[in-house]
């Protein structure tokens, strides 16, 4: 029951926005409902850490350790983004009707993402994934400029194309299980029946799901829409799209991985490693070339999806811990980056790197947070991403996949150099353009500072409950 409440609470905020003249209260109402949902998620995480799982409707809606870590990441980033929106959207000063549309859409988008983490039936999970696309398209096009509309259109066409391919994959998986006499169509049920299923059908389902969901995750070479959509949307929406939406879809794929692994002929881990490495390499090289702060961070998302897929291809418990940890630390660090990039857009009116030289002198808070965010996401110590990436590299070495560790360290290094070169020129470069510098709204500044806290703290210390969730999640992944 508590699961339904936590997931569906923001629907009430969306309903509130449906009333005429609700635009003045909409930001606060939305933020409060999402805050309530966030607090409930922490409670659910504590229950899961104690009991192993929380069940609402058995075999349909339930969470275990892996799911609850994802849910925690989604709820945390959404809460931050909701508060950040109050100042950010007001600063853009859109007409009242668009304010209501934004907040209603925002709440429903968060519901659809939370739904991914609680559905254990692949059909329902697919619907939740499709809804995340449909409910975020109008958020991407919020600016209503030709560029934003173009980004929204590309985003929609490519991810919906992926969704139709993926739905056939889900149906073929259902067929394979029923032909083998299985009945429980859940992640765990599929994994239990997997060894009896026909290898041809499972291979077909794997190919369809990897391509279909891969398009939505932003895996190379289906990543082309991602930098457009993740840079044109308003900053709080970017933080959610990049920080947690892509990971949530990756989660569905990894949940099904145990089924694919049961049949050696599918070579699931080999394909994970190939797509993971290709995405990491391509993104690292694109980061070096980009000229826009938000696109820089969007390419970094492609990079991190590659890293997570590489981690998934290491089938040991250590690899699993690295993957779950990376999922959470990426969500926190990436949202900080986009909050900072949004702050830059508010105070300087642009996110083009060449026009931002010497920002630090004019806007010290935004500049500092941008530097912290970039260091954190690029994998510098002492931030959370550094530890999780190190854990993945070590897990790869211990599992005997030295090449994964080599590719990982080499291209994370290239991406680090590319990203820091650009961000330091913004923050520390000599001021050569005198631009009008605006003020940062208070709520936006508060979120910006608060978002840096978990990124830093998790780099030193992981609470016992969270560490327990990580290790439980890793064992669930290896043997569901």
């Amino acid at each position, binding site marked *: 029951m508590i699961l339904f409440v936590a997931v569906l609470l923001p629907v009430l905020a969306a309903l509130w926005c449906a009333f005429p003249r609700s635009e003045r209260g909409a930001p606060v109402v939305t933020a409060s409902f999402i805050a309530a949902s966030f607090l409930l998620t922490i409670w659910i995480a504590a229950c899961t850490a104690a009991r192993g799982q929380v069940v609402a409707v058995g075999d349909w809606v339930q969470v275990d350790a892996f799911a609850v870590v994802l849910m925690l990441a989604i709820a945390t980033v959404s809460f931050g983004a909701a508060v950040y929106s109050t100042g950010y959207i007001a600063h853009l000063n859109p007409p009242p009707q668009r304010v209501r549309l934004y907040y209603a859409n925002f709440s429903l988008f968060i519901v659809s993402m939370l739904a991914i983490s609680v559905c254990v039936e692949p059909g329902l999970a697919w619907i939740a994934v499709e*809804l995340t696309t449909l409910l975020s398209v109008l958020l991407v096009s919020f600016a*209503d400029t030709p560029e934003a509309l173009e980004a929204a259109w590309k985003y929609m*066409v490519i991810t919906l*194309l992926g969704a139709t391919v993926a739905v056939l994959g889900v149906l073929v998986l259902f*067929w394979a299980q029923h032909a083998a006499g299985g009945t429980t169509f859940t992640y765990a049920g599929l994994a239990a029946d997997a060894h009896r299923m026909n290898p041809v059908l499972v291979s077909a389902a794997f190919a369809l799901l990897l391509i279909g969901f891969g398009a939505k995750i932003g895996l190379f070479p289906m990543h082309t829409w991602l930098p457009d959509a993740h840079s044109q949307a308003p900053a709080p929406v970017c933080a959610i799209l990049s920080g947690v939406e892509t990971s949530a879809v990756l989660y569905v794929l990894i949940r099904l991985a145990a089924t694919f692994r049961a049949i050696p002929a599918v070579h699931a881990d080999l394909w994970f490693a190939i797509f993971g490495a290709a995405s990491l390499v391509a993104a690292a090289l694109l980061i070096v070339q980009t000229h826009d702060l938000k696109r820089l961070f969007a390419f970094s998302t492609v990079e991190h999806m590659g890293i997570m897929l590489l981690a998934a291809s290491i089938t040991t418990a250590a690899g699993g811990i690295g993957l779950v940890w990376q999922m959470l630390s990426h969500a926190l660090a990436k949202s900080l980056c986009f909050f900072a990039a949004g702050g830059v857009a508010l105070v300087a009116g642009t996110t083009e790197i060449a026009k931002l030289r010497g920002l630090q002198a004019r806007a010290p808070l935004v500049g500092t947070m941008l530097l912290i965010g970039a260091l954190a996401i690029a994998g510098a110590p002492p931030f959370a991403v550094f530890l999780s990436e190190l854990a993945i590299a070590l897990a790869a070495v211990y599992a005997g996949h030295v090449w994964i560790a080599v590719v990982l360290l080499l291209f994370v290094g290239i991406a680090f150099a590319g990203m820091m070169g650009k961000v330091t020129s913004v923050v520390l470069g000599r001021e050569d353009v005198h631009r009008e510098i605006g003020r940062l709204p208070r709520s936006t500044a508060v979120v910006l500072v608060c978002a840096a806290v978990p990124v830093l703290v998790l780099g030193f210390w992981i609470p016992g409950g969270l560490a327990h969730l990580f290790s439980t999640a890793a064992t669930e992944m290896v043997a569901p």
Partner: protein
Amino acid sequence: MNAQAFIPEINALICGFFVLSAFAMVVVRQIGACLGVFIAQSLLLALSAFVLGASPFSWHLYAVGIVTLLSKVIVIPWLLRRFVPGEIYTLREISQSIDVPTALLIALALALVGFVLGTRLVTAAPLLATQNVIVGLASLLIGALVLAVRREAVPQMLGILAMENAAFLAGIAIAPDFPLIAELAIAFDVPLLAFIVAILTRAVYRRVGSTAVGELAALREHPQ
């Protein structure tokens, strides 16, 4: 002779028309006619569900057929007519990225690929209606081609919906007892999709002055 013997033949005929409609989606130039092809295709999907559900009787497939009729034959065309400016439907698309004969040849090649893959799948597990899987896969691939060839917003999105039809044509054969709750949710999902697309198309029309989304190319890594 009883009626049951005819069921595979009737279904094969429906599947034949279905793959024809997929080809028509590539060829037809007028946007209004494209919508007409989509409606006919959805009708065929519903018919196939009714025929397959007749014997052995399955109320489940009947439900799928009725929901398809409601959402794809009635609600979606109404939504598109209601929210997308009317003058778009009389447009003839001139600037396709590939000319029609080439596109047809590629579609033919894709259909062959679909047939080969589909045949491999249906030999792997016994099935009542093998045509649906083969035709569904071929039409799915052709639908992806529609997306690549078309530059106008409405035909592009009809391509996506045609791919969805193709996936479900295979689906009603391979997973006739797929959880109804999931199927119903998918059925409500599709009109939402059409609604969002229609809103976005209208916004593009208002801001850019046309709906040739294929020509939008402002976003890329441009060197300084």
